[in-house]
């Protein structure tokens, strides 16, 4: 399970919030995906600060992982092994090369009308982004409802969020920097 730290309120309040967070993450299936989460409550202002770091082994999936790539005359033959990624592969290739360069001859075979060494490294699916989105969604249900004024600082493998129910203040940004150091590497 991930490491969750809650502080800022009384012992009771911290314990309550920690339990709620643990249960909610577990129910949503995100428990194993995070490495560390820090929540600081400052009910006086009031504001909530949350710092999250994802696990490093959450690597993006590149085309090489899920297909067999062969160069055939002037084209690149891509045979996709995992059905669930057909759509994403098509979309990515269209995005990078344009629709007219991409041909789907069979259900799982795509021809790219050029040769490119970098094809195998194309990122098809970045789990991290999905984790990020899902974690943010879950946080909305963990934090109290009234805290709708929010500010994010995103990193590659995590983010820091501050939520409050009043307009923001400079102190927030200062504390964000402090936390960034804490969740560290």
């Amino acid at each position, binding site marked *: 399970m991930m490491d969750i730290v809650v502080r800022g309120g009384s012992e009771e309040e911290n314990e*309550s919030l920690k339990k*709620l967070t643990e249960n909610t993450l577990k129910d949503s299936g995100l428990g194993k995906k995070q490495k560390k989460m820090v929540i600081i409550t400052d*009910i006086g202002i009031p504001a909530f600060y949350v710092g999250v770091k994802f696990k490093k082994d959450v690597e993006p999936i590149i085309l090489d992982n899920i297909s067999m790539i062969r160069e055939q005359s002037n084209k690149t033959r891509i045979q996709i092994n995992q059905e669930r990624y057909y759509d994403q592969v098509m979309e990515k290739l269209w995005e990078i090369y344009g629709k007219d360069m991409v041909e789907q001859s069979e259900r799982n075979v795509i021809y790219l009308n050029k040769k490119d060494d970098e094809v195998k490294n194309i990122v098809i699916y970045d789990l991290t982004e999905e984790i990020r989105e899902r974690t943010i969604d879950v946080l909305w249900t963990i934090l*109290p409802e*009234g805290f709708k004024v929010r500010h994010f600082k995103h990193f590659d493998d995590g983010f820091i969020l501050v939520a409050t*129910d009043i307009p923001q203040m400079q102190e927030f940004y200062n504390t964000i920097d402090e936390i960034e150091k804490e969740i560290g590497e």
Partner: protein
Amino acid sequence: MFKMYVYKGGIYRHDEIIEQIEDLGGIIMQKTPMQTEIDIVFALEEVDKEHLEKLSKKLRGEILDIPFGDMEIAIVAPSLSRHHLPHPVCDLSEFLRRYGSTTNILGLARGYGKTIFQISDKEKRIISEHDAAIFSYGIFKECIMIKEKEIRTLTLPYVICGGPKNIEGVKNYIGNIGRKSGRMKSSDDIKTLENVKNMLLEMVDSKREEINKDPLISPPVYVKRALEQQLDLEGTLGDNPIVLHLDGVRVKKSFEEYSDKVADVKIGDYRLGDISTITKSNMNDTVIVKMRTKSEMEAD
């Protein structure tokens, strides 16, 4: 003074229970048959319960107290959202319903947050129409204290539920609830729910005693029966168009259409409109009937 009970037993010979209740001067409120079992909710004077229990024992049934059976309780959540529903609000509601009450879950429009928290006058009026209220707040002490200040003006019995075990300065408070991520079914949770129910029961009992000292001209259960017999109340959602209050009833029908008909109903020698005040509810166009007291009528 009538008290509410429920008989749980077999369908076989349940007509004898019904006859016995009628003989003792009780009122049958609701019958719920389920295959070979039946639940009969009824009102009876407390002195008669013992005699009825003799028959119930013979038929291998049981009679349970439902102390909130003649009440409408409001469960107030800061808003209707995932944060508050279904846990713990629906757990509270279901628990109280086991003791007979009709519960309404109310979500405030702007009840969340700390600085932005608001409860409007209309919301307070809607809550005040009920016999009791349960406020389900979160886990932060300061927050609960601020929210509690706003509701101090309410005169109906209320219980505040929150996370911290104790909060000084907040009356009628039960801790260990606050925010839950799942159903409250551990033995600790059940104990907490029992505490809520017991606290509410105490407050409601003293309110009942006060009503007893200056008794109503006619008991609400009797008024409910008269309304059901004399008015055509078909077509309302659910089979409970009349909800009991400690001092009257709520008729779930449009005020414009039904207020005159309700006023014309005969209660014994009286006309209901003469022995009660009939107003439009602040909540969902329904009719609120509040009974007057015997001493008020004598003074007239």
